[in-house]
Every structure is written in C-alpha cells, then in structure tokens.
C-alpha cells in the first residue's frame, strides 16, 4: 500500500499534517508515501484531479490503483487505523 500526499506551502492545514505524517512514517516504517506540491507538480495534481481542497491523501493498492482518498486535515489515529486496515491491499 502506498499513500500520495498532496499539499502546498501556502496551505496551513497541509503544514499541520506534515509533522503528523513524519510521526506516522516513523511508527510504520514499511509505509511508502510520496509528497507532491500543488504548485510545482501540476501535471500529477491534474492527473489525480486535485482541485478543490488541500491537503489530499490518496491511498493506493500495490498495483497503484486508488483505494480511496481523504481531503483536509486528518487525525493521526484515523490515519493509522486506515493504514493498518488496508496494509495487505
């Protein structure tokens, strides 16, 4: 499982999520995440249709298909629970 994270430097909620994800990645070392900046990685943002709210977190399966996505700030607890639930996908 892999998570694509979309954010921007001007987005306060995205900045709040940064340290939260650092903690999660420390706690779950096998977790693969990739960060994309809304202003710099325009093509990828368009491909994943990121155009309403930031931050966005897209959960992908091992074949890089979208499982589901979350928009806005999320709690660490909720993210960990979702990661654990979908770790074998």
């Amino acid at each position: 499982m892999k998570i694509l994270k979309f954010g921007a430097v001007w987005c306060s909620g995205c900045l709040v999520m940064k340290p939260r994800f650092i903690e999660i990645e420390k706690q779950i070392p096998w977790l693969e995440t990739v960060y994309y900046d809304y202003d710099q990685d325009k093509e990828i943002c368009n491909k994943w249709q990121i155009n309403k709210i930031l931050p966005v977190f897209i959960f992908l399966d091992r074949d890089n298909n979208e499982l589901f996505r979350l928009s806005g700030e999320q709690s660490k607890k909720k993210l960990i629970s979702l990661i654990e639930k979908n770790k074998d996908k």
Partner: protein
Amino acid sequence: MIKCKFKYLIGFIILFLCVNPLIIKANDLVDIYFFYSSTCPHCAAEEVYLETLSSENENIIIHYYEVNDNQENQALMQSMAEDRDVVVTGVPFTIINEEYFIGYSEGYTDTAIQEAINNVINKESGSINYSIDIPLIGTIQTKDLSLPIITILLGLIDGFNPCAMWVLLFLLSILIGMKDRKRIWVFGLTFILTSSIMYFFLMAAWLNLTIFIGSISWIRYLVAAVAIVGGGINLRSSLTTEGDGCEVVGEQQRNKMFTRIKKFTMEKSYFLALGGIVLLAISVNMIELLCSAGLPVIYTQILALNDIQIFQYYLYLLLYIVFFMLDDIIVFSMALITMKLTGISTKYGRISHLVGGVLMIIIGILLVFAPGVLMFG
C-alpha cells in the same frame, strides 16, 4: 462530522448561558447629557441644580458638553437630538434617556428633570450597567469589561482564518529557503507591521465615517443587516463545509502574487525589496478588507455607539488589530525560532466562523432592537 460541529455550537451557547447568570444586579445609573454654553445664564443655573443632584446621588452621572466653542460637542448634540427627532432651538439642552429638555426654568424644568431621573431608576431603562461578583476578586462593572472583551473577540474572529494567511506562508517559505534569519526578521516584520498599519487606517477611516454619519439611524439598520447576513453566511459555511482543509481558489491571482513575492525577496537591494514587501502587504490587505469588510464595519459601529474619548477609540482599534494579527504573529514567531514553517489547524478557522456567525447575528439583532446593550462605555 455535523455532530462534531454542533458540539462547538452547543459549547458556545452553554458558555453564554453560564456567563449570563453571573449578571446579578442593575446599578440604576442615570446618565444626564448636559449641553450648555459658558455665556448662558440659564445654563449656569441648571448646572448648579445638576451638581446638587449628583452630589446627593452618586448614581447620577452628568456629562458636560460646552457647545459654543466646541464643534465636536455641537455635532454630538445635533446627533443626539436627531435621534430623538427634536430640533434644538437653544441651550441648555438636557437629555435623560429618551427624555429631553430645552431651556431651564426653576420650579418647572428642575421638577421635570427629577421626574425623568425617577423614571429611569424605576423602569431600569437607562444605560445598561451590570456588575459581576467574582469570588476572591470582587465586584467588577461589566461596562468596564464588555468593550475590551468584544474587541478581542471580534478581532480574533476576524483574523483567525488559517487559510487566509497564504501570502505570509508563501513569503516565509521562500525566506526560510534562503536560510537568512535576518531577512526573515526584516521582511516578515515589515509585512506584518504594514498589514497592521494598513488595516488600522482603513478601520479608523471607517470609524470616523460611522461617527460622522452616526446620527442617521438607517445606517445602524444597514450595519445590522450586514451583521445578520454575514453571520448567517459564516454559520452556514462552518456547518456545511466538509473536512478541515484549505480551498483551492483564485489560482491566477495566487500565481501572480507568488511571482511578485519571489521577485521582491530575490531583489539584491534591501530597500527595493522592502518597498516591494510594503506594496505587497498594502495590496493584500486591500483585497482582504474588501472580502471581509463585515466584521470591521460591525465593530466600528459598536465602537461609535460608545461614548468614549477620541484616543480611546484608537486604542480599541489597536487592540482589535493586535488580536486580528495574532495568528500571523504566531506563525512568524515560530518561523523565526524554528526556521520551519508551522501551520495553524484549519479547524480553528471553522470554530472561529461558527462563533463569529452566532455573535454577528446576536449583534445584528441588538443593533435593531436594543442598541443600548452595545453601549458599554
């Protein structure tokens, strides 16, 4: 999610209800507005009478306004007279609550004044002035507290929108990337100070306009309408927005702004860069004030309703600005200390919308039906 949003609303209402029972008694203060001329013998006679009254009863407060040599006092007299649909034909002109007296005649006006005072005391319909008994601290007059509290509250609500600080965040991100603490200090502070000064002047101009046209009662109704509609919009947005995040809007404008910020911060000449930051702050705040003029307009209307000294008006505006800029100051200070960008959770922005919405609607209703409640000072 909706359940969670209602939690904040219920919390706010409970807080309001908890504070309310603390208001235990009215002090029956009687404010007498006495407009006089220093050359008028009837005024001198009434002054003696009023002084006797106030020395006998400490709850009688006399506000003296000399109108011969003071244009501000003249304007105030006209404004208070218009509020009561009366044409002032001479002085002394005395106002006690809704009652007024033109001229002074012993044996007649003094009796009428005494009756008007009794009416205020009996009906408790004079200026709202309550006291709160706080254990260990003692009795505090709410009129001394209410204006600073409402200033802080409205300033915080007006300013606390983490998604609206995108310009500062982008500016700081570039400055942090340059790893130049001095530039962060100078440019960041310049941006915050210019924004504060800009907002202060715009609000001061609006306040003066409100005071100038304050006698026209439909202006108050217009501001009340702004408050109720704005409050409704805030409430709706806080209850219907799904999730805490920042909306991706105004891409063209943002890109233009970012190009300008990059250009200014990369500028080799310090002074040119500073000039650019100042211009940037001015333009950003012009846009921001146009977008969220509701709260400043409502706040200046409340301020104008209060009979305080001119310097106090500006001190209150300053207090408002400090709390309006608080989130920017926090983010800037964190950037200076940690050399990292720190965000403020957008959920606080939603809470601020919710509380602000409720407060704006309450203020709107009060402006129409009981403006006296908003006269704290």
